[in-house]
């Protein structure tokens, strides 16, 4: 049973972690994230890096779609902008990676704002389709602007650099990705403690009333687009550093859908939801791979079915969560927590 919940100051009441227990848990989580690479197998390390990148991008999409209510089918395109920016900078300059990632995020944010411009006039699904059009254009640019993007062959990167240190393996990449992911999550969490986050949610819930209550719609919609594509751009940049190659096919439309699926499964409009969704959806394919490897000795055809089965599983997850658990894994998590808060009493 959770007790001792009374606060003596508003600051204590508005803190991110309102009890010592929560602070201790968070400390432990950070500690285990720090120690993880020293004990993890190369495979787990690789997975952790993937999860980190997915968490950043999913959080970005969640800000736009989950919190501001603007559906985007362009997330992969924005990641592509980030990825190509980092790749180009790595080939033509020797900038340290934080600068390159910042540039990736900013360029992506700028393009995001341009694409968000129609959002004042068009809403809902029309907007989703406008973002789809935008991602078609971006894909076209990636393919056709060969002098910069390397065309269909794409670009190969050099390893990320900082103060003469190169990030050439997963172990080092982990220490680049994970702190950034934690930092960007905290920043996203902070946004929703302030007026800006409240304005986003207000626009999602009732845009017209929000405007009458003093929120300039276009400015905040663009801000949401910019923020979301900044996250996507940084994630795309990390993606480029991680795989050290980017091609137009690195950022397909299915990737945009993957991220939409992640925030639906995790929980739209919940930072925790975005995180859980990103972790879950990154691990599902890996789980399937494990399953396939296990079955192959008995049924040699299994690997052929791996990739289509993945599509089916993704689809079933999306549909299933929407129908049966529309608030996603975040709601499941809350339910578990509530159980322990009340334990040993029952609800």
């Amino acid at each position, binding site marked *: 049973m959770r007790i001792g919940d009374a606060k003596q100051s*508003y*600051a204590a*009441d*508005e803190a991110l972690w309102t009890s010592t227990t929560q602070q201790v848990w968070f400390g432990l989580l950070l500690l285990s994230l720090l120690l993880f690479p020293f004990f993890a197998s190369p495979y787990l390390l690789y997975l952790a890096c993937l999860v980190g990148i997915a968490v950043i991008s999913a959080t970005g999409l969640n800000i736009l779609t989950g919190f501001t209510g603007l559906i985007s089918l362009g997330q992969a395109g924005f990641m592509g902008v980030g990825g190509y920016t980092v790749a180009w900078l790595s080939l033509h300059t020797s900038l340290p990676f934080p600068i390159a990632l910042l540039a990736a995020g900013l360029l992506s944010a700028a393009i995001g704002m341009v694409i968000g411009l129609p959002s004042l006039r068009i809403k809902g699904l029309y907007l989703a389709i406008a973002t789809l059009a935008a991602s078609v254009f971006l894909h076209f640019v990636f393919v056709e602007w060969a002098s910069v993007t390397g065309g269909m062959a794409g670009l190969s990167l050099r390893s990320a650099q900082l103060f003469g240190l190169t990030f050439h393996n997963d172990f080092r990449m982990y220490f680049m990705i994970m702190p950034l992911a934690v930092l960007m999550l905290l*920043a996203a969490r*902070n*946004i929703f*403690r*302030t*007026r*800006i*986050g*409240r*304005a986003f*949610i*207000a626009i*999602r*819930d*009732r845009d*017209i*009333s*929000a*405007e*009458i*209550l*003093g*929120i*300039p719609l276009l400015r905040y919609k663009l*801000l949401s687009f910019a*923020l979301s594509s900044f996250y996507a751009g940084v994630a795309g940049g990390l993606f480029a550093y991680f795989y050290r190659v980017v091609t137009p096919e690195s950022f397909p439309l299915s990737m945009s859908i993957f991220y939409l699926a992640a925030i639906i499964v995790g929980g739209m*409009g919940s930072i925790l939801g975005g995180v859980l969704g990103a972790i879950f959806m990154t691990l599902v394919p890996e789980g399937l791979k494990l399953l396939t490897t296990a079955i192959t000795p008995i049924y040699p055809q299994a690997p052929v079915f791996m990739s289509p089965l993945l599509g089916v599983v993704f689809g079933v997850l999306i549909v299933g969560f929407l129908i049966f658990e529309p608030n996603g894994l975040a709601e499941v998590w809350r339910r578990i927590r509530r159980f322990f808060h009340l334990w040993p009493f029952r609800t």
Partner: protein
Amino acid sequence: MKILEAVNVHLSFGGVAALRDISFSVPEDSITTVIGPNGAGKTSLFNCISGFYRPQQGSIFFRGQDISRLKPPARAALGLARTFQNIALFRGMTVLDNIKLGAHVHTKTGLLGALAYLGPARREEMALREEVERRIIDFLEIDHIRRQPVASLPYGLQKRVELARALAMRPQLLMLDEPVAGMNREEKEDMARFILDIKEEWGVTVLMVEHDMSMVMDISDHVVVLNFGQVIASGLPQEVQKNPAVIEAYLGDGDIATLRRRLNANTEAA
């Protein structure tokens, strides 16, 4: 002294005129009520004042400044706050966040400040929380529900939270669209008391639309009557009550012979 003045406001949708040549004013420090039968244009008038509709003709002045061309957020920043007829709370937020949202135009935190939540951003949030708690939540007696999501609240409380949100806008002119509609007697009395306190203790001018006549007559200083998009009367509550045009608008022509004739015409038509 007039805080708000509408001059020859005309609003039509397609060919249908919702407001015709409306002129009226709201005296400072008053409770002014707009009454009128359903469809008279009361809410359309509110929407023109807060900027959601743009009248085709006429101007609206706020403290002498022409606000007809201003966008809704700019009007909010001047101190025009309102509530809505069908409660327009943000369902995804708690009561506290809904109220805080009202203070949007009076806070300044920018994107970077919000991301970091350090120094000024943090201080601003704390000051806001304190103001909201002290001045609004205590005043409206809603401290027990501040952490609840608004969707779970009963109707009367939702109305009260909406009022709280409007108060957080630090209004100069508070516009209430049917503040007691659908409430029981006790809730109505609470709301009437809050409105009077807002006028007297906060020094805020109130402009409201209301159908509940006993409340209108009890607390209004000034009444404006609309019918078919036109102002048909305005003045002190007692004067308006006796005005024959008003009685006709509400009850039809008082003459028994006319009523009977109309009834007969209706039955024949049917």
